């Protein structure tokens, strides 16, 4: 139950501020589950699995920067896999999201494809240079890409790409990305909320369901243990997309 020591095997740069770390062990995670990564002497932070033995990290602050400073051969402590991951349902599925949120989606898509699902993807990035996992998604099936600056694919936000798709064609939709992007999609596709699984993000402290820092209004859903994958219909009338609590527990705006 203590952090498991893990030696980083390989570090790959995916984009200027995004790197994938291959660990020395497969913790048998379900896509959508996460692991608490202890960067010793710094902090312990939640990271989704981007593969059975990889995490893909965006450098945004102290802990992620410290992780970037570690190379192959250095160690981290792991606590996981934690939380509830995505559940595969139906036959045809759509993966949608953006940014570093594509990490668990690529992992899910690969598992789905092996299991015989038909997989399509709709992904958004800020610009061509931020694109990650393009090959992984394209190997899965039809892939639509949007960029905010139009440097690749459709010009605009992910939701601009929705027009290209008939969501009724998909048995299940899987969502992960910056909160405002996810909210944009969820709120535009309300009629599909019951078949949309969203992998969301809150400020985690304990990651064990006791401290209360990740609880979602108005039901007090503990994202760390009851999520991070949550059916979108439960998010519609929640704080999601409206506000989120930070490290002190006070409310602040949603990022991304």
């Amino acid at each position, binding site marked *: *139950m*203590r*952090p498991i*020591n893990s030696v980083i095997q390989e570090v790959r740069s995916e984009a200027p501020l995004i790197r994938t770390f291959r660990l020395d062990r497969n913790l048998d995670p379900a896509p959508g589950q996460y692991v*608490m990564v*202890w960067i*010793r*002497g*710094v*902090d*312990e*932070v939640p990271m989704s699995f981007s593969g059975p033995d990889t995490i893909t990290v965006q450098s945004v602050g102290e802990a992620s920067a410290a992780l970037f400073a570690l190379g192959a051969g250095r*160690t981290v*402590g792991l*606590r996981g896999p934690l939380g509830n991951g995505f559940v595969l349902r139906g036959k045809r599925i759509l993966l949608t999201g953006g940014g570093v949120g594509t990490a668990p989606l690529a992992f899910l898509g690969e598992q789905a494809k092996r299991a015989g699902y038909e997989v399509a993807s709709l992904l958004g990035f800020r610009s061509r240079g931020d694109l990650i996992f393009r090959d992984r998604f394209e190997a899965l099936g039809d892939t639509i890409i949007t960029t905010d600056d139009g440097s690749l694919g459709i010009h605009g936000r992910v939701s601009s790409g929705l027009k290209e798709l008939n969501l009724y064609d998909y048995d299940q939709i899987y969502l992960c990305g910056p909160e405002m992007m996810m909210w944009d999609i969820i709120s535009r596709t309300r009629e599909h909320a019951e078949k949309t699984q969203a992998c969301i993000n809150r400020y985690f*402290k*304990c*990651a*064990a*369901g*006791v*401290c*209360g*820092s990740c*609880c*979602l*209004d*108005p*039901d*007090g859903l*503990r994202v760390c243990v009851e999520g991070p994958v949550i059916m979108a219909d439960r998010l519609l009338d929640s704080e999601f997309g409206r506000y989120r*609590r*930070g*490290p*002190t*527990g*006070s409310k602040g705006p949603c990022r991304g």
Partner: protein
Amino acid sequence: MPSLSIYAGGLQLNNPILLAAGILGTTGASLCRAARSGAGGVVTKSVGSLPREGHPGPTIVHVEGGLLNAMGLPNPSYKDFQDEIDAARASGVPVIASIFGSFAAEFAQIARSLKADAFELNLSCPHAEKYGSELGRYPDLVESVTGAVKAASNVPVWVKLTPNTADIVELGLAAQRGGADAIVAINTLKAMAIDIETGYPILGNRFGGLSGPAIKPVAVRCVYELAGRLEIPVIGVGGVSTWEDAVEMIMAGASAVQVGTALLRGYGVFEEITTGLSRYLERKSMTLEELCGLAGKEKLQ
């Protein structure tokens, strides 16, 4: 089914099983959820006078028989917390605001500013510098902080004590002198864990507090000692995770019981414990009042 309702520490409770401080107590919604799940009352996360982010992670470590935590009292400050309390009070169960400070006037200021059904003074957190047990280990400070909050508020004041002391009864007597309406015992035991691969203390703060089944025998002992010597009620907390544990704690002298770490199993613990407790009282044809402090009675069986 026998009634579990009880008047304890100045509050009328539907049942004596309460949510402990710092456990799922950051938001009004999570407090309401505890109430809906069967808690007889809920204690909030401890709030202070300034926003705090708490300690860096790891903030918890699972250890044999328990949990170590060093959250570091993260909280938005009392100025940003009344909404959460109000939301929690909508649940209908009493909401006890846990508060902390580093001197009497700071406690009093917070108590004056917040509206809650009662206050619980955190004089016992073992891992936050200048707060908690750093004050709570001194009987004179316990007395003066309690007195200041009593003077500043007109709701019941509970004082939560630390077991990291040679004599918890001394601290309890001090709180009683200060006018406390109840004692809450115990907070966590100061403890730590070290990563044997590297030598790093695991908790971001190095030191933390041990909770869960591991500390129950210490908590039961503290409650028994306090209940035997004080006139005010004692609320028992520490390692309670089954109805049997709750019975033991009440027999030791607890008028009510708080549950913390057992929430690792989910919100279902409240119903599990209250149902078990009712059945027990029914089987024994006893009331809650008769059960309370039974272990300290001269004539048993």
